[in-house]
């Protein structure tokens, strides 16, 4: 189940909110925002020529066949890219920016394995590599939360953090 529909009607406000386990595409030069990334990974894709952009907010690294594709980094990126292609993006021009994937707590249930945050970043990287999309900027890991705003007219990704301050990727 998706919390926000990805087939959101044409935005009148120029700002589309992307929920958790969700992605959205914009080609009108508006902005795409998502909040509350802890261990989740945010993936911004941008085609500078067509201006078609997308933002995904995935919770877990690898898809579970019965799950909603938007919930997972691998299938979420794939679905986002397909939707961007449908909106006129050329995948050979698309570049990516990543943010999120932090490890905020070291709970015992992690069993000393790699944290979900790290696994999310790894899965996003591998998926983008497989799709031949360059990662041009990244703000991942650490132990703090982030909120994102993608300016689809420039491809600028503003990363807000309560601890590390704001930056633009």
């Amino acid at each position: 189940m998706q919390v926000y529909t990805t087939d959101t009607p044409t935005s009148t406000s120029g700002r589309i909110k992307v929920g958790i386990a969700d992605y959205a595409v914009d080609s009108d030069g508006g902005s795409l925002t998502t909040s509350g990334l802890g261990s989740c990974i945010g993936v911004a894709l941008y085609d500078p020529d067509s201006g078609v952009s997308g933002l995904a907010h995935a919770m877990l690294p690898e898809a579970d066949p019965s799950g909603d594709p938007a919930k997972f980094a691998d299938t979420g990126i794939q679905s986002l890219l397909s939707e961007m292609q449908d909106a006129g993006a050329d995948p050979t021009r698309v570049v990516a920016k990543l943010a999120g994937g932090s490890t905020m707590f070291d709970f015992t249930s992690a069993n000393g394995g790699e944290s979900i945050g790290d696994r999310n970043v790894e899965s996003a990287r591998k998926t983008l590599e497989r799709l031949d999309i360059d990662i041009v900027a990244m703000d991942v890991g650490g132990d703090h939360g982030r909120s994102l705003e993608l300016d689809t007219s420039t491809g600028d990704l503003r990363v807000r953090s309560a601890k590390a301050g704001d930056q633009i990727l």
Partner: protein
Amino acid sequence: MNLDVRSLRTFSRLAHSGAEKAAGSLTTLAGIDTYVNVTKVELGTKTDVENEFAERDLVSVNIGFSGGLDGRTILAFSPESAERLVDALVPGMDPTSGDGELAASSLKEVANIMLGGFIDGWADYLDTSIDITTPTYVDEDSGGPLEEVETDGFEHREDERILVFRNQLEAADDAIGFDLYMVPTSQSIGTIVEASGDDGALPVESFAAFSEMICDGANQASDDITAMTGIDTAVEVSRLSFVPIEGVPMSLTDGVRRGVVLEFTGTPSGYIAILFDEPSAENIASSLLPGMEADEAMRQSAIQEIGNIVTSGFLDGWANALETTIEISPPRHVHDIGSAIVDPLATDLAQSQEYAFLIDSTIRTDDDEFTCDIYALPDENELRKALEQLSPAA
């Protein structure tokens, strides 16, 4: 009335797709972008619903439904949201003048379209037909939001457990917020449970017993805060809801919160986050460290101390009622974006479950100057075992 996790999932999906239809109707009608934020299935009492409406001064429009399903849907707004919505629909109208009637009728029209769409979704799923009544406008001066319902022979005792489907919708860049409630009769809940396949349903009394346990825990936690800090607090809400796992962090805003996060293990195991807004955290630090120039480390340890106390107050009752031991980890101090704090907790559970039982309690002072939110996320399977323990037949 019996409930099982499978029917709760069905309820959640239905409520969500109904809410999306409702949001879509408003977008089409008024050209206002409308999103469904979170869909929750809650078990509460009629009094809980009435209290919430009274505390938030909600303005609402009711529509009754009958046929394949019987009950009531309510579209509720804060007075500010209602005003903004009316302004978006009929620009320039002055809601304080004689236009009040007009404002109410625009809200009724919106509700008619949104709630109608919502109910259609349920009728489709159940392959039945559901009739709806004309909308009734209720403001803070009228009776409670469920008042009208009573006259239709849809009676609830004050303390009777009712299932409430609550959908938070947002429009126009968060400027307008709605809550869309649906309260079916318990007979109708039975109809839906049957339609979704009843495997190992638990009597609703088990959920009710658990809800009461949560309320007792929240009251204990509130008393402990008052005893420790001298700040006179009370429990404002305390509820058990069933939400898609991604809806858990989305229940929080991206405002900065300070507090603690703990892990608990036993039957059930899970996570707890105890979060304060910044002024409340400051309040705690200064009341626990009176007259001292507290540095950051001292503040953190004051917050951790209160976190420990609140957690024990909150969980001890559970362990007693469930005749089990619940161990708690040392509290980790957090100071971050609220939704991001809860995100890793929900994500950890998301590896093995698609939905979550979310327990959330708010403890605050009368003047709202001090607020403490407690979020508990038990493992779904383990909670189910715990509920079996509470079942009258057990």
